[in-house]
């Protein structure tokens, strides 16, 4: 059933200037997780931010012009189930490892945005050969009480959408229900995705990553929207100073927390420049 839904979703992505990605399914802990892939070239992984990846995006399309972009869905994000089997950070870390490996991304370059950044950063530190080069877009994982991130789980109805992108309409379009998808199931999928982030990050978004940052030895790009209303820019500096490998910070103008949605061209250019 999940496979059929994922194939149907992929089919809906034609139009709007984008062709559809290829859809396949892998198993994590024996449960199905969708993989979308597109393009030719060296594999480049993408783990999406809050809310997961309900539809293919212009950012991924631009990367797919020169790379084979592979976007596996974490358990609980759209296209994947099984988040409720994962209780501890260790469970989530293993699931991230298994997901990347099963999707054919072992040893590849990986982009991880927002909440997924906390998992990818830890995975890079724990398994140094798993990720070749890492791009983190405003990642979670650290917490400083004197400069806390916005509490994304304590928002009035409808407010979160306005926080995630610089242009609210951009996020609304990203999560808008396609006509052919069942309204109730779409809503449930969105709520499940929100729950998934909470399951591995509630209440502070602090996974204890601070004491493991030094294990990250791969080159890392820290990409930050200049108008991020969720994760303060000071966290870019915290990540950069803690990571043992070479790191650099790039700010994206007129972009919010999910910078790759607000400014797909600038974000894709920054990523491809870093990965050259």
């Amino acid at each position, binding site marked *: 059933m999940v496979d059929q839904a994922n194939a149907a979703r992929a089919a809906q992505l034609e139009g709007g200037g984008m062709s559809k990605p290829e859809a396949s399914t892998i198993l994590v802990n024996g449960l199905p997780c969708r993989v979308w892939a597109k393009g030719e070239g060296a594999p480049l992984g993408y783990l999406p931010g809050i809310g997961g990846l309900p539809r293919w995006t212009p950012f991924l399309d631009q990367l797919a012009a020169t790379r084979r972009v592979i976007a596996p869905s974490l358990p609980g994000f759209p296209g994947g189930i099984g988040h*409720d089997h994962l209780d501890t950070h260790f469970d989530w870390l293993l699931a991230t490892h298994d997901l990347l490996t099963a999707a054919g991304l072992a040893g590849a370059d990986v982009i991880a945005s927002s909440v997924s950044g906390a998992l990818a950063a830890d995975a890079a530190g724990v398994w140094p050969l798993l990720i070749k080069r890492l791009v983190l877009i405003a990642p979670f994982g650290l917490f400083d009480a004197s400069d806390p991130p916005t509490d994304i789980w304590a928002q*009035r109805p409808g407010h979160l959408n306005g926080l995630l992108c610089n242009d609210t309409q951009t996020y609304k379009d990203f999560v808008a229900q396609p006509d052919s998808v069942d*309204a109730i199931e779409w809503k*449930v999928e969105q709520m*499940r995705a929100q729950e998934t982030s*909470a399951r591995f990050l509630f209440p502070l978004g602090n996974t204890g990553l601070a004491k493991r940052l030094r294990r990250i030895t791969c080159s890392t790009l820290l990409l930050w929207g200049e108008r991020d209303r969720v994760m303060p820019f000071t966290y870019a500096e915290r990540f950069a100073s803690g990571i043992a490998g070479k790191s650099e910070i790039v700010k994206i103008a007129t972009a919010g927390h999910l910078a790759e949605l607000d400014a797909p061209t600038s974000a894709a250019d920054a990523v491809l420049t870093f990965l050259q």
Partner: protein
Amino acid sequence: MKLMWFHLMPYTELPEDFRTRSPSVWIDIDPKLFDPARGHLMYNDFMDELEYAAECGFDAICVNEHHANGYGQMPSPNLIAASLARNTQKSALCIMGNSVALYNPPTRVAEEMAMIDCISGGRVIAGFPVGSPQDTCFAYGQNPSMLRQRYYEGIDFIRQAWTRDEVFAFDGRFNQQRYVNVWPRPVQKPHPPIWIPGGGSVETWHYCAEQDYVYCFLSYFGYKVAREQMHGYWAEIRRLGKEPNPYRAGFLQFVGVAETRAEAMKLYREPAEYFYGRCLHVDPRWVVPPGYMTEATIRARVESQMQIAAKVSAGGGPSVNQNATDFEGIVDNGYVLVGSPDEVAEKLREVALDLGVGHLMLLLQFGNMNKDLTKYNTKLFAERVMPQIKDLFDDQWEDKWWIKPMPRAQLSSKAAA
């Protein structure tokens, strides 16, 4: 029918401009608003009121748990219940309840309730709510996505701890304990009655039916809002082939009694408007952390919202407004039932029969109601309302979910006094 006197213990001196001055009554209520010297008086008044209700003959006195909350000042209901256990003799002590997912290990809950059951000679009703999102996820930082799994496991742990007659290991998903041995043991066998407060999810109804626990619909919005929930509960009970015994259910209602309806409208206006205006000023940001609601409940709610939207577009609409803060709206919508003793008795009889509830919990103190008015309301209810409805259901149904106290001859001299 059982008539149970419930206290929320609200802070009674929130300022008049509270709604505009403070973001919420819960979680981020301004700590500077709490005056401990006034708190001293409030707690002592409230405990006097609970003890007075027991003296007046209510079947139970009820306490509950809230955290960082300006209208519910019992972070530990067990502390209050322990005191009530010493100062009352007959009333059941309904602890409604302990949010077991907050306590790791839940051993503490099993121990404290067993202590109170011993002190009181077997008068504890053990309420186990999931806990509101405000109390559990925001005040106590519990993960909303794992709360219910922890909750069910916690109740299973406590039940085993109360009933198994050997030291045992508990190897749960969230709780691991090599040696479980609750000492003291509860007086009531196999264990104190377990009651579950719920908000109307089908899963909770199934859980209560399967485990043979009492389901309680505790809402601040009265009997009109409760109709749909309770009718759904009974339909499910019948569908599951269970006996529709009204003592399987509990329900909470605010009540204000006076000699006449006009007098009641005069007396209870201020405390009701204080409660619904100031005490229920809750910022919506604290209401639905992701994962708190199950997917089945989300589906049911989205379907229900779509049905309501369709009804509204067809010219209908929801029949009960849940946002009233003026007294006329509060009364018209049934949040607070006011009237003369006869009027209140007649209405409560009708409500109990309609909802099918054998355990009626009554909030006879609400908002900033002072001790004198609370005692007046309590006494009038006990003397003039209670006798008119007390016999309801008892000729047909046995309350299998009530306390089983020790024989009087075995009680301590103070407890038997």
